[in-house]
């Protein structure tokens, strides 16, 4: 699991992720690859209809180094159990609350690491520990946002860059 990172010093957009060349396509391809190879399901781009978001398990992870920012992942309530069960090789009825939360955190960590490595392969980045939280409103902050449909339910991903200057941590 990743390390703890300090609270960001400022929340002004450094550069707009929604204007980063190729970032939307990298999110799409990475999400599909991660869900297929490690969670044994499919993810297709979907229209953003966010009525499900307030009740969805959500995690945020921060990263710092040559780029500084954060990523959010929400998994719709109906999708969380089957995806976690598939990841762990369990029956959905066997899942515990901690396992469900840890799966959301692990999926957030894997998606963030894979996306950053594809966006900036020559970068030096430290990824923090994902934390469970309600989905926040990042509208108007330069965040890049995408929704995906899986056979089990919906996923939402947002990623944004923040203004900050701080020494890079030891690991990612």
């Amino acid at each position: 699991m990743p390390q703890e990172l300090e609270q960001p010093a400022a929340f002004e957009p450094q550069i707009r992720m929604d204007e980063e060349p190729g970032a939307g396509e990298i999110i799409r391809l990475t999400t599909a690859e991660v869900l297929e190879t490690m969670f044994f399901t499919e993810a297709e781009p979907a229209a953003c209809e966010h009525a499900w978001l307030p009740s969805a398990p959500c995690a945020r992870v921060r990263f710092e180094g040559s780029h500084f920012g954060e990523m959010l992942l929400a998994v719709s309530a109906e999708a969380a159990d089957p995806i976690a069960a598939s990841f762990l090789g369990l029956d959905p009825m066997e899942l515990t609350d901690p396992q469900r939360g840890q799966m959301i955190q692990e999926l957030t960590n894997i998606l963030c690491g894979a996306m950053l490595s594809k966006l900036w392969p020559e970068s030096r980045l430290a990824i923090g520990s994902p934390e469970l939280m309600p989905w926040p409103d990042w509208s108007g902050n330069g965040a890049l946002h995408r929704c995906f449909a899986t056979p089990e339910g919906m996923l939402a991903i947002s990623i944004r860059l923040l203004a900050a200057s701080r020494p890079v941590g030891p690991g990612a």
Partner: protein
Amino acid sequence: MAYSVLIVDDSPVMRTFIRRVLALSGFEVGECTEASNGEEALAQLRARAVDIILTDINMPVMNGEELLRKLGADGILKTTPAVVISTDATNERILKMIALGAEGYMSKPFTPESLREELERILGERDASRTGTTSGV
């Protein structure tokens, strides 16, 4: 031949997932044990050797980098191959972990087949060097 494997990761769900992937891959696993950080891993390895170690990087108490340093400095354990499993696929990180002694690096996401191929490559080279034959890599 069935190999003994030590999985080192502070995330219980990730340890369970790696066990699942090993089973799905067809890689022949004999005994599979787990540790939640590098310190636990070293204690287990000093009590009982394994054929290969699969380790995360960021863990509390002792991280994967320090674990690799300790393994490399141990006259007995330095022959046990270690594979790093991480979300970080940046070139700098991969080169650093290889320089510290990792014999393989799996960046997430990875398939069961790719994990099996990596383990078989590493263990094939080790077995070949022990018997004096040439690896088929």
